């Protein structure tokens, strides 16, 4: 019997496929707009959402999605009041989220263990989780395809986008819901603590290849699939949490690509001499 025969593993692989597509799709916009820290803040918000969901006897992923969406919209809203202090806004939302999560977890009122959402786990994916992941992923990917050119332009040249009639604020709100969606889909397997690495690292790796936007996005997804699948299988055999190991692999892949690039350019200079 191989590990593929275990239904928990099949569930985990199913969810991982969606994680590895969704995270880089929103990650590329976050990274290029220098908003990576928003990903991190919203990841912590999702932990508060999980605990609220568990407290109310609702599905934790649903709880994460609702609460993270609200926090995403709140960040977008506060941004117009604290224009030049994005990091301050993030601190406010982070305090609210972590405060909520710690209070609920330490109250002892949860009948389930919230640890698996911190570190990620492959054993705990339920059927209802899979349905949530499927719905959120399909809607998110369709929205991304629909708004692709507008989002590219908001990231690349916001003023030119405005002149062309792009409703920048509206799309920013929609985007924060997409971020919430990607995070909610990912927390089960990847865990809160390393979620931001899944959002940023595959994109950072793809950026090293020096391609155009669409190809950079495609390579981000490729690296993301490699990171998550390797992370999943190796962590299973080592019997460690998948979140941590996935993060380690994504750093390793980035370093590998950087070294390959370095090697290539030194071969080129050597040839010229």
């Amino acid at each position, binding site marked *: 019997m191989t590990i593929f025969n275990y239904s928990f593993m099949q569930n985990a692989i199913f969810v991982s496929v969606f994680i590895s597509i969704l995270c880089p799709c929103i990650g590329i916009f976050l990274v290029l707009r220098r908003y990576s820290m928003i990903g991190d803040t919203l990841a912590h918000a999702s932990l508060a959402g999980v605990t609220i969901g568990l407290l109310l006897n609702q599905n934790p992923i649903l709880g994460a999605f609702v609460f993270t969406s609200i926090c995403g919209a709140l960040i977008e809203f506060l941004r117009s009041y604290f224009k030049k202090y994005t990091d301050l806004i993030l601190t406010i939302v982070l305090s609210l989220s972590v405060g909520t999560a710690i209070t609920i977890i330490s109250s002892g009122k949860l009948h389930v263990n919230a640890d698996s959402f911190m570190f990620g786990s492959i054993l705990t994916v339920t059927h209802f989780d899979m349905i949530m992941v499927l719905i959120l992923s399909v809607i998110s990917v369709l929205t991304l395809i629909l708004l692709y050119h507008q989002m*590219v*332009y908001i990231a690349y*040249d916001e*003023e*030119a*986008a405005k002149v062309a009639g792009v409703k920048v604020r509206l799309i920013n709100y929609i985007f924060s819901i997409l971020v919430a969606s990607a995070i909610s889909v990912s927390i089960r397997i990847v865990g809160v603590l390393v979620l931001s690495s899944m959002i940023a690292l595959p994109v950072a790796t793809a950026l090293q290849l020096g*391609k*155009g936007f*669409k190809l950079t996005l495609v390579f981000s997804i490729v690296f993301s699939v490699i990171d998550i699948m390797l992370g999943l299988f190796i962590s299973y055999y080592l019997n460690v949490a998948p979140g941590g190991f996935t993060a380690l692999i994504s750093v390793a892949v980035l370093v590998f690509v950087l070294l390959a690039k370095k090697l290539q350019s030194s071969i080129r200079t050597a040839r010229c001499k």
Partner: protein
Amino acid sequence: MLMIKAENLFFSYTGSSPYVLDGIDLEIRDGEYVSVVGENGSGKSTLMRLILNFIKPTSGSIVPQTKRIGYVPQKNDFSNSSFPITVYEVLNSYRRLLKIKNKDIITEALEQVGLLSVKGSLMGTLSGGQSQKIRIARALMGNPDLLILDEPSTGVDIGSQKEIYSFLKKINKENGITVVSVEHNLNAAISNSTLIYHLTCGQGHLCTPQQYTDEFMKNGGKSNDNIQL
């Protein structure tokens, strides 16, 4: 026909005094090539943002008389060369934003500025002059009546500057596109435009290049920096 009309326009970023623009009245007729000059921080870019309706006047009004406006934003540190995007993608996504069906417009836009050869290149690998020409070509894709540029010669080599200004002159004369261009390059302002709008201390004043030169000589050349006549 009027292209831009500003009446008793006041603007401040804080909503109260001091005003960046302190009671502006301005009429620009269509077919003009207006260079907007003034010292750093005099409110030139702010005036452009008001025309484009990015920001609203604190009081008074400023209204362009057309909806078809092309804009070449001021280059800042953020229009960074590390953004992963090709020339084709820059133009094609813009085409999609403008809801233009015909893809040929991309080739036409590139041919217009003589840069068909860089279609597949990354924006970040182009020279300052090349990328500025792409930005101008992009602004013209919507077939605008009014083209607004903010310091178009920043970061552009002298050769390309000449090409850009003669191109702007050409589309102004031949296609009748009204051009409003913020200029720190006074030589370009004087030799290319039909009118010069001088902003200082929140007030503006419109004159011909000849009048501007005369006034400038009278002031002993101290009102502005890098002029060589």
